[in-house]
């Protein structure tokens, strides 16, 4: 069934971005436009979740993408609400006159993510992946200083290489589709899945590493994760929150779609092995770097690499492992976006991103300190957060495959938890040393509510997964196995 909801998701942000550009001085209106659209986005996601519709041949809602759309909507609303606080507090680095740029590129970024999530053609997905890099780069470059420039340069350069790799993968896949035993196969996901066994396996095997590296770059998987710490650390807190919680998911969807083609082609062992290798590399690198981390936003970025590694490992296991990976993706998005939003408050209080300059948070702002601790508990997958359930499920499934890999998994996770815990404890305890920390930032309620709601949802899912979400996850797992 053809829908008007999909074109709305793709075109409305463009129209709203143009509107904001035409009313540049009306800063308050920019915030309300973004907020209103985020609510409409959630309504559209819920609609598409219930009525699987398509738009032209190139955009389609299937059993896999609704869960990704829903997560995007929830994080987008949280970020939009937090933006009220972000633009309200008195921060000299917060270029209020540039608020229109932030809102324009945020809207366009969300539209590009919708494009990635809804694309039913590998080429279309790749085009929107390019677009997401373009728009998110402008968010990373928000502060326009030398550090922001350096971070944006690295982000763009590494992602451009990744996107080029993905394109090489698409060309190699198309050679396999031309030279397969079933004549020419179109590059729609449905066609690729349906005719997977007819694709020339040699070219499919050649294409997969390039596609995995390409999408993996955006997902933040090692060894292409280098852009993450710089980009997350230098972008404004709400931008870091939405990039860390949604862009990586969109790229994960790309990985899942290609993995499904491999599974359908009977090359599951090959793709599974590569996913496991990249997954463990993504645990190893943060385990080393998080201990050396001097910047709390970089620490969160390394934690994102870790969680993408966990998701990749869960995906490689399949079945219940894939269910756990999807659940973990949801949990990570909720908690990590809350963590990043909270880092914005801490920056506002201390005017520093250095861990050693943030001390005595508990005395400066107990509310932020407890939110910081709660985010830590959630991201390190302690109960009652949903991340605990998902990691436990992945460990259980991994144990059934290999005891050595399970031990390695647990050791690496322990090292990462130790690294984060050490930094979080040093930040909240002691006396405030940094002179500016004594000034109360006077953050409005919108600087706290999004994090509380996001973490509340993560706890709620840890205690009870509602039936509609369970259905979404089960349908996604079933879709991958069909």
């Amino acid at each position, binding site marked *: 069934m053809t829908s008007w909801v999909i074109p709305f998701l793709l075109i409305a942000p463009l129209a709203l971005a143009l509107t904001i550009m035409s009313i540049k001085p009306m800063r308050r209106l920019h915030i309300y436009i973004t907020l209103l659209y985020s609510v409409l986005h959630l309504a559209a996601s819920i609609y598409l979740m219930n009525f699987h519709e398509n738009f032209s041949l190139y955009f389609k809602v299937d059993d896999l993408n609704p869960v990704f759309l829903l997560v995007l909507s929830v994080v987008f609303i949280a970020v939009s609400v937090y933006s009220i606080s972000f633009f309200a507090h008195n921060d000299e680095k917060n270029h209020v006159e540039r608020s229109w740029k932030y809102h324009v590129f945020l809207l366009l970024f969300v539209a590009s993510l919708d494009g990635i999530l809804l694309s039913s053609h590998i080429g279309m997905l790749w085009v929107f992946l390019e677009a997401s890099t373009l728009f998110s780069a402008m968010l990373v470059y928000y502060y326009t200083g030398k550090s922001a420039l350096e971070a944006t340069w690295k982000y763009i350069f590494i992602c451009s290489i990744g996107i080029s790799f993905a*394109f090489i993968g698409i060309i190699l896949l198309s050679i396999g589709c031309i030279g397969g035993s079933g004549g020419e196969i179109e590059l729609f996901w449905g066609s690729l899945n349906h005719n997977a066994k007819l694709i020339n396996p040699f070219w499919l095997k050649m294409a997969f590493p390039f596609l995995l590296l390409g999408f993996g770059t955006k997902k933040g998987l090692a060894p292409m994760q280098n852009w993450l710490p710089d980009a997350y650390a230098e972008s404004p807190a709400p931008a870091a929150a939405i990039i860390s919680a949604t862009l990586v998911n969109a790229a994960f969807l790309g990985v899942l779609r290609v993995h499904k083609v491999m599974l359908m082609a009977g090359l599951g062992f090959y793709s599974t092995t590569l996913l496991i290798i990249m997954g463990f590399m993504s645990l190893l690198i943060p385990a080393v770097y998080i201990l050396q981390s001097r910047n709390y936003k970089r620490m969160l970025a390394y934690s994102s690499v870790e969680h993408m590694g966990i998701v990749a490992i869960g995906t490689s296991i399949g079945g219940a492992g894939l269910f756990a990976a999807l659940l973990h993706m949801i949990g990570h998005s909720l908690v990590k976006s809350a963590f990043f939003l909270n880092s914005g408050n801490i920056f506002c209080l201390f005017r520093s991103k250095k861990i050693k300059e943030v001390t005595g948070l508990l005395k400066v702002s107990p509310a932020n300190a407890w939110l910081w601790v709660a985010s830590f508990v959630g991201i390190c997958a302690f109960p009652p957060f949903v991340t605990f359930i998902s990691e436990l499920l992945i460990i259980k499934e991994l144990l059934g495959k290999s005891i050595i890999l399970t031990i390695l998994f647990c050791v690496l996770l322990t090292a990462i938890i130790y690294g984060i815990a050490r930094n979080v404890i040093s930040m909240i305890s002691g006396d405030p040393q940094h002179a500016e920390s004594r000034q109360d930032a006077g953050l409005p309620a919108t600087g706290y509510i999004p994090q509380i709601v996001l973490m509340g949802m993560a706890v709620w899912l840890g205690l009870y997964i509602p039936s509609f979400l369970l259905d979404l996850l089960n349908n996604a797992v079933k879709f991958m196995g069909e």
Partner: protein
Amino acid sequence: MITPINFENSIIILFAVTMFYVAMSSRMEAYVKMLAAQGALLFAVSLHSISPSDYITFSFIIFETLVLKTIVIPLYLMKIIRQNEIQREAKPSIPNLYSLMIVSAITAVGFVFAYWLAGTHQPVNPLFFGGAISVILSALFIIMTRKKLITHIIAFIFLENGIFLLSLSVAQEMPFIVNLGVMLDIFAWVLLAGIFVKMIQSSFTGQNIDALKGLRD
């Protein structure tokens, strides 16, 4: 007499050979001239690969290769190089002689691999495939061993040229792949050159990768 097929083969070999010159040279202007040369060679290959009956794609590709890759991009980069007085790639990670040897080895492996594939009845034109793989891998090697930011941009455009040649190998069967290749070019041009060369220029004097070490743990 040079037959059309021989003409195309000669062009692809020349296309791969341009990377030898890049590997052994330290002069920025030489890099940009090779970029223009690759653009012209891709234009010649495109004339043979794309059917003129599909005149929209045909004119699009001709514009992309002849106008953008051969004229506009090299001229713009040359202007930046001269404005900033960046004459040479100072202190590459490995000496140019070794670079030349490694790029030669990469090219040899690329062509041997492509001919091996063709021998196993895979649907590839070995010269197209070998030339493309050689240039892609050589460009990645140049990115890894050179330090100037402008060299990284130029090497990335070499990489794109390699990908463009690879996309031409499936142009008859899947013409939209070539269009996607053009989009990659536009994307990279907008992001890398259009925005950031200007920005880097203003903040990072000399445009050396060593200047980008402010963000670390």
